[in-house]
């Protein structure tokens, strides 16, 4: 494996640093796997291929967190078109305007400092 010596999470973050949303694919199961792992949960095989998502998805579930202090913000589960689900947030609209079924597009968010880049989404009409 070309990335020997790197954890699945490290590889995932390195893709994010390049602006890519990466996921794994299990050729034996014929299914995507997310979050990244060392073992396929469908087959038990360690053979997992890295792929890069096209970055389009659909909001599967959504909530608006109302912190005791500070502005409310969105937390969503997004189903990417390749068939894997991840937690994220939809930016660029009011948090309560995020709708289940809404089409969204990946972008990388770079918090800066010690924090790793994160996959967030913005509305993507008509795709």
């Amino acid at each position, binding site marked *: 494996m070309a990335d020997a010596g790197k954890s699945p999470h490290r590889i995932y973050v390195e893709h994010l640093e390049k602006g890519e949303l990466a996921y794994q694919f299990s050729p034996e199961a014929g299914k995507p796997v997310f979050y990244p792992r060392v073992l396929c949960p469908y087959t038990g095989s360690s053979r997992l291929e890295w792929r890069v998502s096209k970055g389009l998805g659909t909001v599967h*579930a959504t909530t608006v967190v109302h912190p005791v202090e500070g502005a409310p913000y969105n937390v969503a589960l997004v189903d990417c078109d390749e068939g894997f689900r991840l937690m994220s947030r939809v930016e660029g609209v009011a948090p309560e305007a995020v709708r289940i079924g809404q089409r969204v597009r990946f972008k990388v968010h770079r918090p800066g400092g010690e924090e790793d880049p994160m996959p967030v989404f913005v509305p993507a009409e008509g795709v």
Partner: protein
Amino acid sequence: MEGLERAGAAIVGVAESDLGQVAEGMSVFDLMAQGVGRALDDCGLTLKDVDGVFAATAQSRLSVLGLCEYLGLDPPFIGSTIVGGSSFEYHVAHAMAAISAGLCSVAVIAYGSTQRSVGRKQASAREINPYETPFRPFMPASAYALAASRHMHEFGTTREQMAAVAVAARQWALLNPAAWEKKPLTVEGVLASRMVSHPFTVRDCCLVTDGGGAIVVVAPERARSLRKKPAYVLGCGQSVTHSSISSMPDLTVTGARASGEAAYRMAGLGPADVDVLELYDAFTINTILFLEDLGFCRKGEGGAFVEGGRIAPGGALPVNTNGGGLSYCHPGMYGLFLLIEAVRQLRGECGARQVAGCEVAVAHGNGGVLSSQATVILGTEATV
């Protein structure tokens, strides 16, 4: 559960420790020991009889060692499976297996929490999930809120229907002198409360209290000679579907479907045989999901099912008769209290909230973020 015998064990002693806001300086082991002492008194056994010890708490990683030390016991069998709030329903199955295998004969199962006194942040170690934590979900509420959003989307479940769950719990709590909440609650009151994680206001969410307790499990032959009427373990089942909410296979279907089926199969009973239901109501959506998944209504119909006071005092189906995690007590891992209330209902000890003719009770535990489900079906002597 395959391999366990119907009515192969019975719960013979139950007790809460101090609840709500406990005395300053009380430890989780003080509360566990209080529960053990009271539960043994309840059935007429003593610490010398105890040869199986089970414990779980969010505030001690090696909780069963702490409890054994505190009680001065070196028991041949110990267990501290920890799967959140459903831990104690697992412990019942494990105690039953140990008793059946001759590994112990008198098992105590104990819990303690001082999360209200010490603060939620102190009460459980923060766990970082690199695929969720950066998005700042308010856990566990946001995970259940995501599941609720899906239930609302797919089935048209409303905030008012979820609020009806909280109102019913409050009505039951007003009949329970041990309940934390003492004032009536309305659907409007739930909806107008402070929003936590949409669609949940603070009144859709469980309480944050201290509390603990214990139960005593023995073989059926021994149970019949003790002080109180035994509650026989007729069935149990468990299911683990995920750990983090983003990995839940279907946000509207919980592992309660599988755990319930296993428990019903072992008991030879079905939903129609159940007189009282104690469901882990960490959030209002839980009660709706578990009523569906345990077969009391069809998938998607739970919202309509709880309307009109059906699960409230005087309704057709008594649910969470102690007031539940929403209004009675919720120290973080509520599952032990489901068992305590189910046993008391079967004994007929519940005073104003007693369900008449209660012969079969279900205690259904939930752990994590709908992650772990464990169903225990209990019955009186007449059901054995």
